[in-house]
């Protein structure tokens, strides 16, 4: 047979077989993408970011391999405190390996914690500028983590990480709406419990700790605190204090002393817990009935008025503006 005819037959066969497989192949591709085994194709921006050599490798089904190397590179940026490069690198990494929790968590941690605290203490820039950079780093970290959750909605750890970040008194002032952020943290912890986190009891309490700080949600928080309190394993100091505060808030006319004794058991325990709460409240928990409770306990324990904790000067308020002076 002439070679020309051979080539024509060859091309026709390729074409026919190609047409035969195309539909099936398309279905398989959709199936694999739905199963999270593969990424959508239109991630051209990630191909732009990876340099030439890596992109060839990434295309060959080695995206996660490239991600591990970029992670090494990112660590170098971290050590050199090159935050912009660090952020860019993590954008690429999560494009390559979007299902790896570690990259989302590490990337957001670098931004919200490391970069933010760098700007907090860095002295070359004027305070206002530093504050703005501090705030934007934290917000970027939050946004990054939220994208991670969008990509992996069933990963409890990402939810818990978001809760940790939003609950953190050092990060909270950066959020535009404090209450909304705390509410989001509360929901994130609940979600992590639903998805089977390692420490469900802790996260349940952390969820309460967030909700208790949201203004206008006190009754909901009280409901939750009561439910948790039914299980003696939950009887940790912060939970007991919050139960006290929320109970008092629900009925401010009640006898603070009786309430404290009911919740803490004895006057000494109640006094120590309330005093601790009174002295340092960085988290900004409600303070309802704490002063009244302390006064009653001091009376019961026979503490003279001159030594009353209520007369002592409180720790200065928690104001981020002070940090940038």
């Amino acid at each position, binding site marked *: 047979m002439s070679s020309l005819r051979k080539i024509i037959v060859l091309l026709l066969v390729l074409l026919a077989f190609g047409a035969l497989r195309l539909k099936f192949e398309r279905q398989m591709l959709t199936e694999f993408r739905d199963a999270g085994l593969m990424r959508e194709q239109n991630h051209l921006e990630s191909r732009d970011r990876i340099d030439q050599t890596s992109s060839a490798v990434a295309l060959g089904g080695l995206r996660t391999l490239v991600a591990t190397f970029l992670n090494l590179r990112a660590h170098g940026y971290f050590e050199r405190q090159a935050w912009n490069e660090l952020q860019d690198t993590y954008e690429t990494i999560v494009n390559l390996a979007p299902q790896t929790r*570690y990259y989302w968590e590490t990337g957001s941690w670098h931004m919200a914690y490391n970069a933010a605290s760098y700007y907090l203490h860095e002295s070359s820039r004027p305070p206002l500028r530093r504050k703005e950079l501090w705030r934007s780093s934290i917000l970027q970290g939050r946004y990054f983590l939220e994208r991670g959750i969008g990509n992996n909605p069933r990963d409890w750890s990402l939810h818990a990480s978001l809760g940790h970040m939003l609950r953190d008194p050092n990060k909270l002032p950066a959020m535009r709406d404090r209450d909304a952020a705390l509410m989001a943290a509360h929901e994130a912890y609940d979600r992590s419990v639903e998805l089977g986190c390692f420490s469900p009891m802790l996260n349940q309490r952390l969820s309460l700790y967030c909700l208790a700080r949201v203004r206008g949600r006190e009754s909901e928080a009280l409901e939750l605190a009561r439910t948790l309190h039914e299980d003696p394993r939950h009887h940790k100091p912060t939970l007991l204090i919050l139960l006290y505060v929320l109970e008092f808030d629900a009925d401010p006319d009640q006898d603070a002393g009786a309430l404290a004794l009911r919740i803490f058991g004895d006057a000494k325990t109640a006094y120590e817990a309330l005093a601790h709460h009174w002295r340092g409240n960085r988290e900004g928990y409600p303070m309802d009935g704490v002063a009244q409770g302390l006064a009653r306990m001091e009376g019961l324990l026979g503490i003279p008025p001159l030594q009353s904790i209520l007369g002592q000067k409180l720790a200065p308020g928690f104001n981020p503006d002070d940090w940038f002076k």
Partner: protein
Amino acid sequence: MSESTPTPAFKASHASRMVTLSLHAFTQLVRMKVFYFLAVFAVIVIGSNFFDMAQHQGPESVGANVLRNIKSWSLGAMALFAVVISIVATALLLPRDIEDRTLYTVLAKPVPRIDYLVGRLMGVLLLVFVSLAVMDLLMVAALHLRTGMVMEMQEKMAVGRGWPEEAIQSLKQETLASGVNWQLQAAVLAIFLKVAVMAAICLSVSTFSTSTLFTTVVSFLIFFIGHFQADALDFYLKGVEAGTSTFSQYLALGFSLFIPNFQLFNVVDGLVQNQPITLLMVGKLVMMACYYVLLYTLLAWWIFSDKEV
């Protein structure tokens, strides 16, 4: 005299000839000392153990990075080695037989040309299979050892932090799941399937090419272009949806008809990240690979059947 018996009593079956030829190709490649690359692989696997980065969180992130490194580095190296071995070995065999005139001696025996081609292909695949199996074993061993170490560290740290027992158990379960599992074997299988398709393509290229270099270059080109096939198809289908098929979109269609879709075999990335794969999906992948291998082997035969050697 016995030599003058009219027809010899023995006649080889296709299968036995193919086996003979494939074992021969395998021996030939092994005696070219290809297996030295396994030492490099061992270094990579061992090396992947030493890249542990600063940790920022609790027990759950201790060592998780190392396990992931072992998996993705090993599988990455496997994919790379396997594709290089298959292309280079396939590209080498046929031209070398022609150059050394050993092909005459084989084809002058009662050996149909399809047997010769399939035998060569099977030899290369056997080599790749054995290589992958050894690498797989190394990876699993490293991962197994390291998972045990990581779990010990995690437990120590968790106990130190006063985690309740159930939390520690749950953490252990999760670490175990990211250690040695069947997903990894599916990933290795996917690598093998992809490489088998590549070898078949390389074989058909080598039947009409005149040099090893040409075959190698063209094969790698097809390999990389094949990863864009899905993009081309998406591009065409978008045009169909919008009802505005342009010339470039038809071009994209033609492209996806001719070039195999290698993206399909890239489930490795998902599997490294512990995404589940069903047996049915694995089955479909195997079928797709068989389809391609069969097609390209037949094409190779079509070209080679009356090639003048």
